[in-house]
C-alpha cells in the first residue's frame, strides 16, 4: 500500500455536489459502450472530485475531458456476462451487422468485376431516374411560389371561328376592361405583355427585356418588392406611368446592387422613369428572362381607332390583332372596282391576362361570367357568336406544353431502372448459384438461415448504397447538363434542383432495389439442400437448378430485352422525326447569312420616316464592308414567327359573305429581301425599287396565303382588302418559309415592302428588327465590322442576337433534338444493359455446362454444332423478348404521337431498323460466350 493510494481515502470532506462539466458527461454517455458506462462514468466522476480537491477546478475539468476523449479513442467494451446488462442484445446485433458489413465488402472486393457491373448498372439507373425526377419535381410538381397558386388562372379568349394559333392564350383589352368593370369572378385581374427597351445614359446602350404589367399584378400574385414598393393603382393612368421596377438580377448586373437606386431616374427608350422598387431574386414572372416591369395602360379603343392603336402599339404591345370584316364583295375585287360599302374595321389589342379567383368562386361560374361579358361586348358579331372564355390554372398553362414530354422521359428512365434491377437480380442470382458450395459449408458450420439471408441482404444493401451514391453524383452532373441545354424550352427548369424530394426518391429506389435483388438469392439460400450442394465436386447444371433460378433468370432477361426494344423503337421514332424536321427545306438559303437584331430607341425614332432614313443609311454603310454580298432588313427574321397578325375575312362568294376570317402573319421587308435570302419565287415577281410610297400598294404572299385568299383562282395580279380599307395587289407568290420547331406547318403570311407599309405600323413592327447579311467569308467574321459601322451611325441603337442563320435554324429544332437525344441515350443504356443481361446469362450457363459440352465434344460433336447450340439458345431468348417488345411498342408509341413530325408511331421502317440493331447487339453479346463454349477442351474439363 503506498501512502498516495491511502491519501485519497483520507477523511477530508468531499464536495459531493460537484459534478464533472455537463458537456463531458454528455459526451461520455455518447462515446462509452453501454456495457461499461456505469462503471466508467462513476470512475470519471470520482476522479473529478478527487482532482477538484487537489488540483483545482480548471485542471480537474481538463483532465476530465482528457478521460472522456480517451474513452472515445480506446472504446473499452467489457465482455459482459452479467444478466443485469440491459444492452446485451443490441450490442450483439450491432456487432454482427458490422461483421456482416465487413464480410460483404471483403466478398465484393474479391470479385471486383461483378461488383463493378452491379454498381455501375445501379448507378446509371438511379442517376437517370433521379435526374429526370428532379426535373419533373421542379417543373411539374412544385407549386408556383405564390400564395394559393391554384387560384391564379390564365384567361384566354377563344373564338372557334377565327383560326388562331393554338396555345396563344391571350385575351383582348376590351374583355379585360369590361370584366374588371362588371365581373365578380376575380379578386384581381391583370394584363401583361413582354417587351424590350433600350437603357441609355450610360457608357453604351443596353437592351433590356421586360414586361408591361397592370399594377394589380403584384397584389394578385401576392409578391412584394424586396426594396422599395411595387406599382400603385393610379400608375396605370397616362402621365403617372413613368415608373419602373427592376429585377434583382438586372439591379446586380447593371447597377452593381446600388442600394440608393430606388428613387433615381433611368432613361429607358428615351423616356425618364423613376425606379420605385427592386423585386426579390426569386420573382421571375412572366419568365426568367424578365429584367424590368413597367405599368401597362389599358384604355378603351373605339372602332377604327387608328390613332389609339398607333399610340399603344408603339408603346408596349408586341402582339396585336386587327379584326376586319369585309362587307359584301369586299374581297376578291380588282383594285378599280372596290366600290362596295366601306368595310367596318375593328381594332383589338390583345395580350396575356391573369386573374385571381375571388373567395368561393369556382372555375365553372367564372367561365360563364366571362363568356357572357365577352359576348355582350363583341358588338359586331351576331347572336350565334361562338366565342367563349377559357380559364387555365396558371401552373398548367406554364408547364402544360412540356408535361407530356417530361412524363415520357420519366417513363423512359423508369424502363431503364427496371432493366437495371432485372440485370442486377440476374447477376446476384448467378453469383449465389456460383457459391452454393460456400453457402452450404457456412450452413454446415452452424450459420442459421436467418444469418445467411442477412449476409446476402447486407451485401445487396452495400451494392445498392454505393450504386445510389454513384447515381447521386451522376444526377448532379446530369442536372447541370440538362439545365444548361434545356432552359430555352422547359419552363421553370431553374427550379429543378437536387432537393430533398429527389434525394428521398433516390434513397427509396436504391433501398428497394437492394431488397428486391437480394431477395432472390436469399430465397435460394434458404431453400438450399445442404447435402446435394456439398456433394457436388464442382459447378454443374445442378447448382442453378437447385436454386430454381434458371427459368426465373430467363424471364428476367426476356423482360429486359422487351423493355429495351420498346425504348429503342421510341428513340428511333424521335430520331427519325428530328432528322425529318432538321431536313425541312427552310424555303431560303441559310448558308453564309448573318442575322443581327437591333433595338430602336423609341423617342428619337418616333415615326416611319425616321426609321426609313436610318435603315437606308445603315444598309448603304453596311454594303460597303468587304465580304458582304448583300444586306437586307426584315421586321422579323425568317426563323421567327411573325409578331403581328391580322385577321381578315375575305369572301369570294357574294352569296355567302359571312365567312370566318383568316389570320395572316405580317412581315414587312426591305426591297432586296427575297433576292438576298434567295427565296423561291413561285410566280410573279419580287419587290423592286419602283414599289415605293405613293405607288400602287403591292404585296407578296406565300403559298399558304395565296391558297387562303384565292383558293380557286390565279392570285397574281389580283387584289385583296387589307387594313384601313386599303386594297393590296398581289405581285408575287413565294414558297412557304418554315419557321421549323415541333410544328413547322407554315401559316399564311403577307410580305409588305418597307417603303409602302402603313406608316403607323412601322414603329411597332421595326422596334426590334433584323438585318440579314449575306457574306462571302464565314458570317461571324464580319460581325465586328458591322458593329463598328452601326456605332458610327447611331451609338444608341444596341445590336443583339447576332447569329448565323444556320445556328438559328439549329436552335429552332433544339427542343425535338433534346428529347430525341435524351431518349436515345436512355435507349442506348437500356440496350447495353440488356446485352449485359444476355451475356451474363449465357456465359453463366456455358460455364455451368462445361462438363456436358466436354462430353459432347468427346463423343464427336464439332465446334460448329456447339456454337450453333449456344447461339440458338441465346437467340431464342432475344427473339422472344423482341416479339414481346415490338408488341409493347406498338401499344405504347402512340403516346409519342404529339412529338412526332411526319412519321407514324407505327412506322414499319423504324420497327425494322430497331429490330436489326437489337439483333446485332444481341448477337455480339451471344457470340463471346458461344465462342468460349467451342474452346472447351474435353480432356481438361473431364479430368
Amino acid at each position, binding site marked *: 500500500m*503506498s501512502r498516495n493510494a491511502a491519501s485519497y481515502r483520507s477523511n477530508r470532506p468531499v464536495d459531493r455536489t460537484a459534478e464533472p462539466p455537463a458537456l463531458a458527461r454528455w459526451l461520455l454517455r455518447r462515446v462509452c459502450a453501454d456495457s461499461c458506462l*456505469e*462503471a466508467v462514468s462513476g*470512475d*470519471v*466522476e470520482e476522479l473529478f472530485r478527487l482532482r477538484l480537491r487537489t488540483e483545482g477546478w480548471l485542471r480537474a475539468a481538463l483532465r476530465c475531458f482528457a478521460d472522456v476523449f480517451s474513452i472515445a479513442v*480506446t472504446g473499452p*467494451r467489457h465482455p459482459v456476462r452479467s444478466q443485469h446488462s440491459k444492452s446485451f442484445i443490441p450490442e450483439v446485433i450491432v456487432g454482427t451487422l458490422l461483421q456482416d458489413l465487413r464480410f460483404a465488402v471483403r466478398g465484393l472486393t474479391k470479385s471486383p468485376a461483378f461488383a463493378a457491373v452491379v454498381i455501375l448498372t445501379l448507378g446509371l439507373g438511379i442517376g437517370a431516374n433521379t435526374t429526370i425526377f428532379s426535373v419533373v419535381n421542379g417543373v411539374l410538381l412544385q407549386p408556383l411560389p405564390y400564395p394559393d397558386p391554384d387560384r391564379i388562372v390564365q384567361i384566354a379568349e377563344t373564338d372557334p371561328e377565327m383560326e388562331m394559333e393554338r396555345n396563344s392564350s391571350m385575351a383582348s383589352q376590351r374583355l379585360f376592361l369590361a370584366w374588371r368593370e362588371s365581373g365578380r369572378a376575380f379578386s384581381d385581374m391583370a394584363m401583361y405583355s413582354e417587351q424590350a427597351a433600350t437603357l441609355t445614359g450610360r457608357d453604351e446602350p443596353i437592351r433590356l427585356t421586360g414586361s408591361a404589367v397592370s399594377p394589380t399584378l403584384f397584389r394578385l400574385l401576392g409578391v412584394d418588392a424586396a426594396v422599395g414598393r411595387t406599382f400603385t393603382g393610379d400608375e396605370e393612368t397616362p402621365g403617372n406611368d413613368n415608373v419602373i421596377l427592376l429585377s434583382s438580377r438586372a439591379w446586380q448586373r447593371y447597377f452593381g446592387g446600388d442600394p440608393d437606386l430606388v428613387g433615381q431616374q433611368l432613361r429607358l427608350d428615351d423616356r425618364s422613369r423613376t425606379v420605385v422598387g427592386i423585386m426579390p431574386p426569386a420573382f421571375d414572372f412572366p419568365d426568367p428572362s424578365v429584367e424590368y416591369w413597367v405599368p401597362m395602360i389599358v384604355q378603351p379603343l373605339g372602332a377604327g381607332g387608328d390613332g389609339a392603336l398607333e399610340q399603344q402599339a408603339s408603346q408596349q404591345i408586341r402582339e396585336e390583332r386587327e379584326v376586319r370584316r369585309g362587307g359584301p364583295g369586299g374581297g376578291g375585287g380588282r383594285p378599280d372596282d372596290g366600290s362596295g360599302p366601306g368595310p367596318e374595321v375593328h381594332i383589338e389589342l390583345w395580350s396575356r391576362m391573369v386573374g385571381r379567383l375571388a373567395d368561393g368562386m369556382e372555375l365553372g361560374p367564372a367561365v360563364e361570367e366571362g363568356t357572357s361579358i365577352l359576348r355582350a361586348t363583341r358588338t359586331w358579331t351576331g347572336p350565334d357568336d361562338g366565342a367563349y372564355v377559357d380559364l387555365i390554372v396558371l401552373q398548367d398553362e406554364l408547364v402544360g406544353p412540356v408535361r407530356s414530354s417530361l412524363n415520357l422521359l420519366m417513363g423512359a428512365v423508369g424502363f431503364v431502372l427496371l432493366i437495371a434491377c432485372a440485370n442486377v437480380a440476374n447477376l446476384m442470382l448467378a453469383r449465389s448459384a456460383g457459391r452454393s458450395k460456400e453457402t452450404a459449408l457456412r450452413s454446415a458450420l452452424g450459420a442459421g438461415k436467418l444469418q445467411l439471408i442477412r449476409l446476402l441482404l447486407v451485401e445487396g444493401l452495400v451494392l445498392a448504397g454505393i450504386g445510389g451514391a454513384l447515381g447521386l453524383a451522376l444526377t448532379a452532373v446530369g442536372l447541370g447538363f440538362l439545365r444548361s441545354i434545356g432552359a430555352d424550352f422547359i419552363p421553370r427548369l431553374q427550379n429543378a434542383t437536387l432537393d430533398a424530394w429527389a434525394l428521398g426518391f433516390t434513397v427509396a429506389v436504391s433501398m428497394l432495389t437492394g431488397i428486391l435483388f437480394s431477395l432472390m438469392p436469399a430465397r435460394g439460400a434458404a431453400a438450399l439442400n445442404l447435402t446435394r450442394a456439398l456433394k457436388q465436386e464442382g459447378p454443374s447444371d445442378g447448382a442453378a437448378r437447385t436454386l430454381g433460378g434458371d427459368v426465373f433468370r430467363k424471364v428476367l432477361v426476356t423482360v429486359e430485352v422487351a423493355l429495351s426494344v420498346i425504348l429503342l423503337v421510341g428513340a428511333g421514332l424521335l430520331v427519325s422525326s428530328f432528322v425529318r424536321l432538321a431536313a425541312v427545306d427552310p424555303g431560303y438559303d441559310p448558308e453564309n447569312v448573318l442575322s443581327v437584331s437591333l433595338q430602336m430607341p423609341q423617342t428619337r425614332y418616333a415615326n416611319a420616316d425616321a426609321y426609313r432614313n436610318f435603315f437606308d443609311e445603315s444598309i448603304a454603310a453596311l454594303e460597303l464592308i468587304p465580304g458582304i454580298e448583300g444586306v437586307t432588313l426584315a421586321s422579323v427574321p425568317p426563323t421567327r414567327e411573325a409578331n403581328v397578325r391580322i385577321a381578315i375575312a375575305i369572301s369570294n362568294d357574294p352569296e355567302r359573305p359571312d365567312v370566318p376570317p383568316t389570320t395572316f402573319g405580317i412581315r414587312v421587308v426591305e426591297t432586296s429581301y427575297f433576292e438576298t435570302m434567295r427565296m423561291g419565287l413561285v410566280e410573279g415577281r419580287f419587290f423592286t425599287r419602283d414599289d415605293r410610297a405613293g405607288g400602287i400598294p403591292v404585296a407578296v404572299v406565300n403559298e399558304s396565303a395565296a391558297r387562303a385568299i384565292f383558293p380557286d383562282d390565279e392570285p397574281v395580279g389580283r387584289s385583296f382588302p387589307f387594313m384601313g380599307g386599303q386594297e393590296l395587289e398581289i405581285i408575287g407568290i413565294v414558297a412557304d418559309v418554315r419557321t421549323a420547331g415541333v410544328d413547322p406547318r407554315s401559316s399564311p403570311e403577307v410580305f409588305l415592302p418597307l417603303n409602302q407599309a402603313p406608316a403607323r405600323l412601322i414603329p411597332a413592327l421595326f422596334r426590334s428588327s433584323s438585318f440579314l447579311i449575306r457574306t462571302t467569308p464565314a458570317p461571324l467574321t464580319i460581325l465586328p465590322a458591322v458593329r463598328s459601322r452601326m456605332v458610327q451611325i447611331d451609338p444608341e441603337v444596341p445590336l443583339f442576337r447576332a447569329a448565323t442563320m444556320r445556328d438559328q435554324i439549329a436552335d429552332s429544332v433544339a427542343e425535338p433534338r433534346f428529347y430525341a437525344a435524351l431518349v436515345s441515350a436512355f435507349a442506348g443504356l437500356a440496350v447495353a444493359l440488356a446485352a449485359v443481361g444476355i451475356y451474363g446469362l449465357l456465359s453463366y450457363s456455358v460455364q455451368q455446362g462445361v462438363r456436358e459440352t466436354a462430353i459432347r465434344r468427346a463423343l464427336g460433336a464439332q465446334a460448329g454444332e456447339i456454337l450453333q447450340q449456344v447461339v440458338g439458345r441465346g437467340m431464342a431468348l432475344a427473339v422472344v423478348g423482341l416479339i414481346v417488345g415490338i408488341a409493347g411498342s406498338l401499344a405504347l408509341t402512340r403516346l409519342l404521337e404529339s412529338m412526332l413530325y411526319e412519321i407514324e408511331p407505327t412506322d414499319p421502317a423504324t420497327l425494322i431498323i430497331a429490330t436489326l440493331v437489337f439483333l446485332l447487339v444481341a448477337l455480339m453479346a451471344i457470340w463471346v460466350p458461344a465462342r468460349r463454349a467451342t474452346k472447351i477442351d474435353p480432356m481438361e474439363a473431364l479430368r
Partner: protein
Amino acid sequence: MKGERLGEFEEIVLLAAYGLGRDAYGVTIQQRLEKSIGRGATIGAVYAALDRLERKRHLKSRVGGATHERGGRRKRFFKITHAGVQALETMRADREEMWSLVEDKP
C-alpha cells in the same frame, strides 16, 4: 498481437490491481499508477488495458460498491486470477534472470 504475453503497460496495470487486492477498480488503479510511479494515464487507457487483461483471463471483474463520491454508480472491481499471478511471476523471473546476467558481467 502479443498473444498471451503481457505488454509493459498491461504488466503494471495488472501489478496495480494485484497490489490493491479487494479494492482494485478504475480509480484506485489509475491513482496508483499516477501517484506511485508518476504515470498519469487516462481512464480510457486504463480500461483498455483492463479489458485486454480480462480477455486474456488474467483478471476477473464483478460489479458492486456504489458510493456517493461517484454519484451512486456501482464500481467494477477487478481481481487477479491464478493465471494472472503466474504471468506476473513468469515475467518477474525472466527479468531477474536477465538482470543477473547483466550484473554478473564484469
